[in-house]
């Protein structure tokens, strides 16, 4: 089933290839003249949809990911968590019924006694169990690898919460009124970290990455071998959590 997913992606990218090449030349020609510089920047992660000029879509040539360097993360700092709650309009959690898209954990290696602190969130797997189990297809993976919940088709069955091995999916247990306009969310749906998709599509980093004071978080395109994240991942041999499950998470860790 997971293989089917990647096949579908490949099909899309192949049929799109010639069109994209054409569009790229058109965009290059027109870009300097008529397109806003902002849109030009956006074409890094977004391809221009054919039907509607100026409308950009998530591109399968990109795989957004995060590198979390636990050796740089401070145990007493929760800037990323606060930034996430503020950016996405999430109230600060008070009970186990409240949602957490990101959490700080501090672990101890029982053999060496060494402690490590780092944030954990949705791992944006290439083969996400939450997508496999969702009966309506509301839980889905975008072309650029970001795993999201389509709240229009989520029926609130919570099977994805059961399926996620990272405890990254939450269910909204109470009415919501404090939504941010760019982050719609409401009672009765499952949800999780969106990798700040609304910021990423604007060419910005996720809020947690922007807020990290020590540079422990790095965001970028794992598919691009020249990107900063891909180079660091290679350098540090950064690995995902629970690599035994072979879910190919887009979030990699160093020092865990």
């Amino acid at each position, binding site marked *: 089933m997971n293989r089917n997913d990647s096949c579908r992606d490949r099909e899309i990218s192949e049929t799109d290839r010639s069109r994209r090449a054409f569009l790229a030349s058109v965009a290059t020609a027109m870009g300097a003249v008529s397109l806003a510089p902002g849109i030009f920047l956006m074409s890094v992660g*977004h391809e221009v949809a054919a039907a509607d000029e100026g*409308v950009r*879509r998530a591109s399968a040539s990109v795989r957004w990911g995060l590198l979390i360097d636990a050796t740089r993360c401070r145990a007493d700092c929760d800037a990323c968590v606060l930034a996430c709650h503020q950016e996405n309009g999430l109230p600060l959690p008070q009970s186990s019924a409240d949602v957490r898209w990101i959490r700080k954990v501090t672990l101890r290696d029982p053999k060496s006694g060494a402690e490590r602190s780092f944030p954990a969130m949705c791992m944006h797997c290439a083969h996400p169990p939450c997508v496999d189990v969702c009966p309506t297809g509301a839980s*889905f993976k975008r072309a650029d690898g970001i795993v999201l919940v389509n709240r229009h088709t989520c029926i609130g069955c919570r099977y994805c919460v059961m399926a996620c091995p990272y405890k990254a999916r939450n269910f909204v247990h109470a009415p919501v009124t404090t939504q941010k306009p760019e982050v719609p969310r409401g009672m009765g749906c499952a949800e999780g970290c969106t990798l700040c998709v609304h910021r990423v599509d604007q060419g910005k980093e996720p809020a947690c990455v922007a807020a990290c004071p020590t540079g422990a978080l790095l965001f970028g395109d794992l598919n691009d071998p020249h990107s900063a994240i891909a180079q660091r991942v290679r350098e540090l041999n950064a690995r995902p959590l629970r690599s035994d499950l072979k879910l190919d998470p887009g979030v990699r860790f160093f020092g865990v």
Partner: protein
Amino acid sequence: MVARSRWHHAALLRRWRAWLVTLCALTIAVVALAGGPPQVTVYPERGPCLADAATMRRDHPKMLHEQKHRTVVLGERGARVQLAQCVSCHAGAQSHSVVASERDFCRACHDYVAVKLDCFHCHQGTLGTQSAWRSGEGR
């Protein structure tokens, strides 16, 4: 006997029709007294809408329905149809919202036609924390 019965029958029929006419008239009167279709305020100074009022009234569910898949699943940004844009143009001057009060733009009509308004269960229908896509402002 027969003729009388027929007359009687016709009279009954006529009376039945009369009742029906009265009922219709009463219904119309009640609806008219209740105020008829709601009067919603529009703000032309906020700029033109995507289409004329009649088209918008008829087609806005279809437009939103088609766009929601493209935005959420395909990741389309900068689309013509954007719910946040609807809110920022149509929010009431006092309530700053399309749903907060009974006279607000979306709610007034949806209440009137008794169609459940599900968008603002998740989408923010009140201005205030708005950071519009169009402005493209970043940090």
